């Protein structure tokens, strides 16, 4: 019973951590972007303000059941994936649930949210939303190929499909996966550019083309909930990358160890997050087919090399 209690508290802590970190990262990116653009920029906690405001909107429009459900799907997807991803290695307070984060499960579960979003956007009947969704799904087919190649390379190399095992092996051998199989890391890194949807891959909600794409018709609490889901997802993706390629984080259960583990995690995730952000600052947007072709070019080739590397 005590075990279960810790797990429930741990799960709540994980959600709060993911939400806070995701939102704060968003705020920091806004601030940094502003600084690069010669501006002062908003405060770092601006995203929280935006969220609070969106949640306190008095009226909210839904175009029907799926529109109402879209944010729910996103949060389900985000929340569920979060429960199955190891946050800190060997820490009691941030446990993932017993089965140790199966990679294939994660791949599919992450799509769950996108599909829900897509359905919600579809129900509004706004052509911009539908076009945005087709773009998003098409781009997903693009970046999933190198990403999966990288994951297959990982699985083959370490003969496991569990994230926890991969983390453990990295901890044991002392070699990060990004050095053990650099090609896989590079392929996944390229894929991450598409995953985070910064320029040049922000084709889904491209303002000058599609107003704001799938979220065109969502406002108020719906937009706010989506924003929270998106923030959690950002954290999930980053943590996943850190777990897989950068050895994860975590030292143990003690208070000091937990704090240190979190510190290391934040350091790693933030530096990883800066890759797509930096790339985004100076890149215009691709057209959809250009973006897909991009992912099917070098990143996929790198992925293939990674798999071959892993086999031999």
């Amino acid at each position, binding site marked *: 019973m005590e075990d279960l209690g810790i797990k429930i508290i741990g799960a709540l802590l994980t959600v709060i951590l993911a939400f806070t970190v995701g939102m704060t990262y968003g705020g920091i990116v806004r601030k940094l972007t502003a600084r*690069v*653009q*010669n*501006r002062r920029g908003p405060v770092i906690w601006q995203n929280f303000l935006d969220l609070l405001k969106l949640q306190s909107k008095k009226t909210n429009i839904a175009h029907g059941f799926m529109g109402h459900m879209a944010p729910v799907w996103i949060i389900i997807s985000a929340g569920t994936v979060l429960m199955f991803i190891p946050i800190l290695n060997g820490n009691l307070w941030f446990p993932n649930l017993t089965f140790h984060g199966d990679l294939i499960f994660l791949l599919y579960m992450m799509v769950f949210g996108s599909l829900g979003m897509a359905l919600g956007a579809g129900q509004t009947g706004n*052509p*911009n939303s539908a*076009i945005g969704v*087709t*773009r998003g799904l098409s781009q997903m087919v693009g970046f999933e190929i190198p990403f999966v190649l990288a994951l297959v390379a990982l699985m083959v190399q370490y003969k496991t499909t569990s994230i926890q095992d991969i983390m453990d092996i990295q901890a044991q051998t002392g070699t990060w996966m990004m050095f053990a199989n650099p090609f896989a890391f590079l392929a996944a890194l390229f894929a991450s550019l598409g995953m985070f949807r910064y*320029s*040049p891959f*922000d*084709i889904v909600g*491209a*303002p*000058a*083309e*599609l*107003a704001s794409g799938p979220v065109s018709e969502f406002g108020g609490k719906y937009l706010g909930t989506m924003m929270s889901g998106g923030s959690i997802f950002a954290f999930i993706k980053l943590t996943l990358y850190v777990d897989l390629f950068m050895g994860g984080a975590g030292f143990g259960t003690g208070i000091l160890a937990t704090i240190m583990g979190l510190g290391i995690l934040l350091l790693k995730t933030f530096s990883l997050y800066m890759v797509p952000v930096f790339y985004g*600052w*100076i*890149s*215009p*947007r*691709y*057209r*959809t087919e*250009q973006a897909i072709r991009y992912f099917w070019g070098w990143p996929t080739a790198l992925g293939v090399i990674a798999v071959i590397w892993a086999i031999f």
Partner: protein
Amino acid sequence: MVREKETTLYLGPQHPGITGNMMIKLKVTGDTVVRAETHVGYLHRAFEKLIERRNWLQTFTILCRFCVPEPDPMELTYARAVEELENREVPERAEYIRTIVMELARLQSFMLWYAGQSGSAGLYLTGQWSVGDRNYILDLFEELTGGRIYHMYIWPGGVRRDLPKGWKDKALKTMDYIEKRLDEYNKIMFDNTIFQKRAQGVGIVPKDKAIEWGVVGAPLRGTGIKHDVRIDEPYCAYDKLDFIVPTQEGGDVWARALVRQEEARQSINIIRQALEKMPEGEFYNKVPNPMKWTVPAGEAWTKTESVRGEVGFYVVSDGSNKPRRVHVKGAAYTNGITVLEKILPGQNIADVSFILNSMGVCPPEMER
């Protein structure tokens, strides 16, 4: 109604991708534009009607609002038309000042264009920088004319006031700064392979049809045809200055962008030359009491080169103290309606806003 085999997509009037307040009704299949219709009139203020109720000088408050991003060519063209009707002389110093004002206006408009062109492709950094730096040019205007955007500075017979003390040095300094910054924008925008991929081969204006279609300005020069009012029918002090009219082959967005990039440099060059060569003397050939000021009957057609292309004024006077008719032909009147409707079909939805910006579509001068 049987559903057409096309989807209707409204681009504007309220859309981040539209330049100003207008609407382009796109018929698309997939993400390819099949037909495009430009709808205007969202900014129709009946200026030409109002001008008929204003006297010759009051008209200037209206003129500068014809095209908001670049108001000065309108004032100049009208002033020149009135001068032509009246045979009014313009002092040489005023011609030089007018040249400087024109080129400053062009330069600030180019900087807005940098923002529009790169912003519509999703590159916001250049836009943020250039619009921010544009304020320095507006500062010059403010010191010179008293207004940031609307100047009402050029009058028939000259300009409203002389250059303030120290303005010349300030202008030269600003030019140095802007020139340095232009390099930086170009590094981010033009050296970027993604931008090149986006811009090349998109929105092609055919060279053999361009003049017949009524294409003017940078889109025309982007097809390789060297046509610029500043050399065809020189006005102000342009015939005394040394500058290049750049052209590019291809007729696509990329060619137009290169033309504009070079033109922005040339503007700085011209401003420097004009400041250098400017003679001392009168800046204003006095007009009579504006309330009683009549202009001899007649008609005049004057043209000026703005950033978007040729701006023409057709001014008719019936000898009274109010213009009988002032008809404005903005560059966007052809570029933004018929030409756009011809080049948009077959393009990607993603490129519509991009092409729009490269064609220099400016709604207020289309519907006035």
